[in-house]
């Protein structure tokens, strides 16, 4: 395992779930829940002859950023595509709910210093959603996470951190959309339906899943940033993600609320505006939309470095 300082300068994209979890919080502050020594593997995989992992593919735990407790959920895409089953789904839900418990305790014990100690939830998504080997339990876990999010509304910010190989798809695609703040690197992807399924539904001429550039234009971070589905686009360094979390940890909750995409009637109405635009325009490619939002040469945007992109990009105006 790399040292914390090495991790801060390492690629987020290349990092495994545990490295990401450690690097997202301050140095030497991470305590893992159900760590490998607990050997809490999925009981459902062995009967299907599928390999198991001691952490069931999701690293959960708590660390600190300053005095803010940061509850971390970090998914491992290399283990069954980061999919959610009974055990790791339970770990995820429990960890998010602990943030609320911690918030209550801090409010009680540090009423004057709450702002500086307010907890944060950070979820490093790398998943295609439900784990098919234990599909029903995985599905039910998704609903529990959404429920826990609603409990955290206005109390504890929940931050999606997306920038790993598998991206964030399936049910976890809308789980990420339901968080307060979304942070991505250029390699990050969020969506609901994976590219292969779209190709299967619409035909290769309409959507070629092997065309990775097209896949990135449709679900990648730059597109998400332009349409305001991503709040922060950062360089591919774990340290850069950590810095954004540190910034978010100190933002007042009413400001956090403004960073959301969904979760109120007003926000639904704003999204309906975007849906109307897409319905009227019938874009062949996300680039049509980028142009509509004022980017004269949309084809250039994917080629730009993150820093160059951030300098020139025009984004959808928020209502």
């Amino acid at each position, binding site marked *: 395992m790399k040292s914390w300082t090495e991790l801060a300068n390492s*690629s987020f994209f290349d990092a495994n779930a545990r490295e990401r979890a450690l690097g997202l919080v301050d140095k030497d502050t991470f305590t893992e829940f159900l760590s490998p020594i607990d050997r809490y593997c999925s009981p459902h995989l062995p009967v299907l002859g599928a390999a198991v992992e001691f952490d069931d593919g999701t690293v959960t735990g708590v660390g600190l950023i300053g005095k803010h407790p940061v509850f971390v959920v970090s998914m491992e895409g290399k283990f069954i595509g980061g999919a959610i089953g009974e055990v790791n789904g339970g770990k995820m839900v429990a960890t998010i709910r602990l943030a609320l418990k911690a918030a209550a305790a801090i409010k009680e014990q540090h009423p004057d210093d709450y702002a500086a100690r307010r907890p944060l939830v950070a979820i490093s998504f790398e998943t295609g959603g439900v784990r098919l080997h234990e599909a029903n339990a995985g599905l039910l876990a998704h609903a529990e996470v959404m429920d826990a999010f609603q409990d955290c509304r206005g109390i504890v910010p929940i931050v999606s951190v997306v920038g790993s190989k598998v991206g964030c798809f399936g049910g976890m695609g809308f789980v990420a959309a339901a968080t307060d703040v979304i942070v991505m690197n250029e*390699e990050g992807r969020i969506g609901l339906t994976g590219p292969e399924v779209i190709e299967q539904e619409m035909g290769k001429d309409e959507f070629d899943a*092997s*065309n*990775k*550039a097209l896949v990135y234009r449709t679900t990648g971070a730059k597109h998400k940033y332009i349409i305001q589905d991503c709040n922060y686009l950062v360089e591919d360094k774990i340290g850069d993600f950590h810095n954004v979390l540190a910034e978010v940890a100190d933002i007042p909750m009413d400001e956090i609320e403004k960073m959301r995409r969904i979760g109120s009637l007003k926000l639904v109405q704003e999204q309906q505006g975007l849906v109307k635009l897409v319905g009227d325009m019938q874009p062949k490619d996300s680039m049509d939309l980028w142009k509509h939002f004022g980017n004269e040469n949309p084809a250039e945007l994917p080629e730009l470095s993150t820093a160059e992109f951030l300098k020139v990009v025009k984004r959808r105006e928020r209502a």
Partner: protein
Amino acid sequence: MEYKGITREWDTLKKDAMERAKNAAPYVKEGKIVDAKDTVALLEAVIKPFDKVNIEGNNQKQADFLAKCLCQVDPAKVHDLHMVQSVLTLPEHLDVFEKGIAKKLDMSFSGPQAGRIAQFLQEGKLELGAIHTYLELYGRYFVDLTPRVALVAATMADKKGNLFTGFSTEDTPAIVEATKFRQGIVIAQVNEIVDELPRVDIPGDWVDYVVQSPKPFYIEPLFTRDPALITDAQVLKGMMAIKGIYGEYEVTSLNHGIGFDTAAIELLLPTYGEELGLKGKICRNFILNPHPTLIPAIETGWVESVHCFGGELGMEDYVAARSDIFFVGPDGSMRSNRAFSQTAGHYAIDMFIGGTLQIDPYGNSSTATANRVAGFGGAPNMGCDPKGRRHSSGAWLKCGEEYALNSELWGPVRRGKRLVVQLAETFREKLAPGFVEELDAFALAKNANLSIEPVMIYGDDLTHIITEEGIAYLPKCRNMEERTAAIRGIAGFTEVGMKADPKETKRLRELGIIKTPADLGIDMSRANRSMLAAKNVHDLVVWSKGLYNPPAKFRNW
């Protein structure tokens, strides 16, 4: 003595060609241009039953439109064709046999169609002449397999039939020259018809008909390897190769086989190679397609020249901007040529290094599997010790000096030996063993009724095997027994390796016939992806200063 010649006509081929041209005349528009919609009729007019026909199917570029059209001819008019082509990649290449249009096949490599060839052979739908190397097949184009009709692909044509094949020239000159100068008929599909070509690669009077295809010809980025998929084990083998072979023999001219193993080596040159102080001493002249993974080595000044068999999608601008390194025409774009590159690969380089699927205890190496008739393309020509070589070089001489059978075979004469190196993992994905007591080639020969086992590299040509366990320096072995022991010694836990005698392995290590990573002084803990000069495709674009334009399927941005 009185000689009496026979009496016959001496220009029947020419007359026959003229007659065919007459049949085709109604379809010719301006100059040599035929409409895409008339292509099937054109083929029916110029092809006769039992003709030898070449569809330009190269390792990369494909005359795909003409292949499709040939599938649509009436088998009552056109049948029993004898296909002579280097590569069968497209389904249409086999569909002509299914439909009874073609009967016999001579080829070099079949990639994705290999399973169907085996099946057709068993069903009697196809008669196989031989599986050649590229050079053998090109040679036979000029001996007894001359195409009567060639269906080739070019990037552009003008109205006079001049062709621009540019970056993707590949096999076209060899095919056209053989066909046209024996009175054959050449039909070209082109992406574009223009008034003026950037340059002429094939003169117009060697071409009979030009068809603008509805879509640009199909081409696959076959040689692009995403650095993100290189494993730590491949890094380890790459480090062993650089230190134990490249550095040891100071190999300056070489070919890299396709694959992640060699991609790893290319990406280790600017890091590990630099650290070993080998820059300028190794890897100066390549016979190689424009591998994107070679960009960092080129940019750091390792490489003096690269001649290419074919192009590689996305590398056009980079290659054009590096005309000191690549073979670039007066118009500014590269010209590839598989026939010349293969010739160079056979005679003019000191080392071939590449991956394989199976090696047996005798050192025979093959990528053949039991139910696929695939062939080996150019690998056997590069992966052998060319008997006709008469120039010397440092690496060649050093390898020859080590050859323990030297004096037995040719006495005191100094003669070198080409380095032929195979990279193998003891077990590949899904734990398929890289070492076997009997090659699958035997089963294939039986299944497909082949006269010989398809061996890619014969044991006596193979000089070195690199596995994660160690390098076997086979020329140093004095006899078959020792050679087999050396192979077993690096074959790990495969059935071949399990039979190794630890004492014998130890002795061979002392003799320097086997060198483990530790013997080579390689710290295994350093063998990981952080050693690579580029970790992903995006890094390659950055190394190329934005000149490399990767195909969409290799992008993650």
